């Protein structure tokens, strides 16, 4: 029960498996030019080469290396997902903190806006945003961040609100502490763990959104990504199933790993709230 955080966290088998896969993906993404020197967009061989037949993962309809696509795709997907999540966490965190801290009318207005963004069909909105801004890495990041911040805002608001009424914060008020000092020194450090957990789980959602967008052809052009590979391979499903299967499995494993790690973080940060 009083085991240190790291032991509790890594000692969980699911977390360990997740961490190992994530480490592989991240290392692969960083080392892409060395471990997959072939340009993912270049024609490198015959089309529709089966896996293990000269190419580890085969080639696609144009003879491009699937392995190169997977490795370079990891780069794109991870980068976009992480940046979009950081944006969503920053914006949602700000909205939530202000809303929860000041309460009253500020809170009312901000929460109405948050509810609004939660109500509208977010994926359709993301499609619209990318379409209107014209597809690029930036517009994909903006679109994902724009549809992902509301849950962060809600969680941070809830935390800040409950901490705001906690007695140690009131004690700081009665000592005459400034608002921003209270917010940053008393409240936010104590609201950090739910923020970290939600943020990490949000990366998984962002990966799913990014791959769905690029599957529909709305991804960043000139960047190979897993969703794009599935979209490009779907027409050849009958004859070259591996073009669709392998990037899909990559997405599945990565999202799964992030979820496992995120939940492990949650259990390790809130040992008492663990469900059996």
């Amino acid at each position, binding site marked *: 029960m009083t085991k240190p955080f790291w032991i509790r966290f890594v000692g969980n088998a699911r977390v360990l498996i997740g961490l190992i896969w994530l480490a592989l993906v991240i290392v692969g993404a960083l080392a892409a030019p060395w471990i997959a020197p072939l340009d993912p967009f270049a024609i490198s061989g015959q089309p529709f080469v089966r896996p293990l037949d000269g190419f580890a993962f085969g080639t696609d309809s144009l003879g491009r290396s699937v392995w190169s696509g997977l490795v370079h795709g990891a780069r794109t997907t991870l980068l976009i997902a992480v940046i979009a999540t950081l944006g969503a966490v920053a914006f949602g965190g700000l909205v939530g903190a202000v809303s929860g801290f000041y309460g009253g009318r500020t809170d009312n207005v901000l929460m109405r806006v948050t509810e609004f963004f939660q109500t509208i069909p977010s994926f359709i909105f993301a499609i619209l945003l990318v379409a*209107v801004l014209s597809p690029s890495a930036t517009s994909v990041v903006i679109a994902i961040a724009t549809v992902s911040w509301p849950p962060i805002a809600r969680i941070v608001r809830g935390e800040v609100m409950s901490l705001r009424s906690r007695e140690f914060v009131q004690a700081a008020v009665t000592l005459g502490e400034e608002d921003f000092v209270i917010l940053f020194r008393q409240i936010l450090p104590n609201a950090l763990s739910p923020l970290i957990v939600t943020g990490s789980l949000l990366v998984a959602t962002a990966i799913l959104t990014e791959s769905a967008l690029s599957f529909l052809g709305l991804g960043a052009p000139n960047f190979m990504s897993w*969703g794009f590979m599935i979209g490009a391979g779907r027409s050849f499903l009958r004859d070259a199933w591996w073009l669709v299967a392998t990037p899909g499995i990559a997405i599945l494993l990565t999202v799964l790993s992030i979820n496992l790690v995120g939940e492990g973080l949650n259990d390790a940060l809130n040992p008492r709230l663990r469900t059996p």
Partner: protein
Amino acid sequence: MRGMRLVRFILTRLLQAVPVVLGVVVLNFLLLQLAPGDAATVLAGEAGGAPAEYIEQLRARFGLDKPVLVQLGLYLKNILFLDLGFSFRNNSPVLGLILDRLWPTLLLMGATLVISVGGGVLLGVVAAIGVRTWRDHLISVAAVIAYATPLFWVGLMLILVFSIRLDWFPTSGMEDVVAFHEGWARVVDIAHHLVLPTITLSLFYLALYTRLMRATVLEQRGAEYATTARAKGLTERAITMRHVLRNALLPVVTMAGVQVGALLGGSVVVETVFAWPGLGQLAFQSLFARDFNLLLGIFFLSACLVVIVNIVVDVIYVLLDPRIRVGSST
């Protein structure tokens, strides 16, 4: 008495929905402003060669020579009269195009909601009752995996296995058009086409509700009122069925309401994969035709749809939970 108050509650909720709908309209307008070029060229479709007089007509309609606020007013007025404009690419009014595609989407969404909420509640309860048994482990592991799977990929894999390899289900479409089925045969045909898209769209939400239901049932079984029921001499089964289940349903109902918008987004992807002739596929097509007017219309109407479903969910919630006072007691 309660019925009257319920009606008043629904009316209040409808009233509260007005700002949301207006918000979507304003958002649409802002998106038009964001797009490169003026609204007329955007709406006419950048890629297509719309006739110059059509573009002029659009300019007049949107008052593009007038200040932005007047433009917004005109835009609002048009939409509030359900005048969503004309799709030049499809050569017909946007509203008609959308309404034609509405019911396949509703069918897909309805089937998905039933499967995912119903199945999720069932599986969640089964897992919670047998917590830490093989049933729980099987359900939990399956849920964790399904929760991480991209929808469109599941769809393609299902097509690969069940349509291409096994040939059990059709690969695409909503019905066999050349067969000219009628009556019952047509219903069966549509149901046959519905199976794979519904499974695809349901999988993620099934996993979501299963996990939520399992967690809340476990939590509620540890609640004090469950101990009271135990102290009354009830069997564990009776405690779960009579006391825990209804309490555990509340968060699931709330979540189902929150997820309606996402569900609609998911249907875009699924309809594209299965060529299901609904709103999602229409959205995909208009995207490639760069038919923004149609896309904005779809966004507007799907937001309205979400608002309506949310009100239905709120009503269900109120019926389940007596603590919520419906309307104001005077």
